[in-house]
């Protein structure tokens, strides 16, 4: 389940975000993408997820290029963007049920997931009434639904409180132990065992 990137280049307007970037992400590894604001972290993550084509370069998952097998790649991938992906008019439990349905995994997992992230008491409140931290926890809960082997997370710890960050770190380490690989774009320090971490600094390649 290796993700390989070969001389990836991306331009935004008149400015090169990154240029001839190459790396591989092995299972049980966490790629930490660092860099100043606006240096293209989100764009890189979108390219890795297949949401956006690069200007040039190739991204392959198990030796097959991304755009050749999007739906198969999506079964392994879990994506977390800036916005949480939870629709505001639905309650917590309904959102989780829809996401479980989308990723075709069994519904009974929802109860344990709800319990794990501590949103059990807020099960029936609408998402628009939740605080930003709770919305982020709900988005993190989605990562645990069903099985996946690649997480791509864009600043996952934003608006999380201390307990939330600790929860997130335990989740990620557990996922890494099971052989998953993770790509994270973040500023805050990450409390994960350094042997997992593989750093990539985007501001360096200007």
């Amino acid at each position: 389940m290796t993700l390989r990137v070969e001389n990836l280049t991306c331009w935004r307007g008149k400015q090169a975000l990154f240029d001839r970037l190459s790396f591989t992400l092995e299972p049980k590894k966490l790629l930490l993408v660092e860099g100043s604001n606006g240096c293209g972290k989100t764009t890189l993550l979108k390219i890795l997820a297949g949401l956006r084509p690069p200007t040039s370069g190739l991204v392959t998952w198990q030796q097959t290029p991304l755009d050749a097998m999007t739906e198969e790649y999506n079964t392994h991938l879990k994506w977390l963007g800036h916005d949480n992906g939870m629709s505001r008019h639905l309650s917590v439990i309904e959102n989780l049920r829809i996401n479980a349905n989308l990723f075709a995994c069994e519904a009974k997992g929802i109860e344990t997931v709800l319990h794990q992230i501590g949103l059990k008491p807020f099960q029936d409140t609408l998402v628009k009434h939740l605080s930003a931290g709770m919305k982020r926890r709900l988005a993190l809960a989605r990562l645990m639904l069903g099985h996946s082997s690649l997480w791509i997370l864009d600043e996952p710890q934003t608006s999380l409180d201390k307990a939330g960050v600790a929860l997130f770190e335990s989740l990620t380490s557990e996922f890494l132990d099971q052989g998953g690989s993770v790509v994270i774009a973040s500023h805050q320090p990450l409390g994960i065992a350094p042997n997992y971490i593989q750093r990539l600094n985007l501001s360096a390649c200007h």
Partner: protein
Amino acid sequence: MADFSFFILMQREFKIASRSVQQFLLPISFFSLVVLLFPLGLNPSPQLLQTIAPGILWVAALLAILLSLDNLFREDYEDGFLELLVLSPRPLALLLAGKVAGQWLIIILPLLLIASLFGIFLGLPNHSLGTLLISLLIGTPCLMLIGAIAAALTVGLQQSSVLITLLLLPLYLPVLIFGSSAVQHASTGLSSNPQLYMLSSLLILTLTLAPLAMSAAIKISLSQ
């Protein structure tokens, strides 16, 4: 347990609609207001109204659907749910088709009731009301599906409602022409079958092609 992709988003639309009722009352009230304008704008003599009634009802239905298109994908785009749909293992075309079908089912029932009511107000003979309802039943899904393509193309842009109107009016013409002339023929006692057959062939064409174009358009809008 996993449902058929088509119905996942349809149920979701019903739940959302049940919570924010305002969202689907808007097209209906817009429809009635537009129809109300014409008798006030022109003189309310029955003969004049009867001849132009089919055109008024169909143009009003078209504009009501055009209005409801802007926030078809807007909220999901802002919530980030569209990204999840694109990155889910299920076929995107079917998911989006389910979503548009949900929106259509929510709008169509009240629209048919109000349209027949205003049909009577505008003096349409009773036997042509049936054709009016059938033509709306066949025509409005066409409008929704073609409109969804334009909505998908413009979801990432700022003031997209003007752009959607410009994109859609040329594409809406065939449906409007056959729809209103079906009702016109029925009100003058002629058979309106040819128009209804044409409308259903347009419906089948859009049913097959529109979801593909929609999913390609959504992927492009999200790749900005």
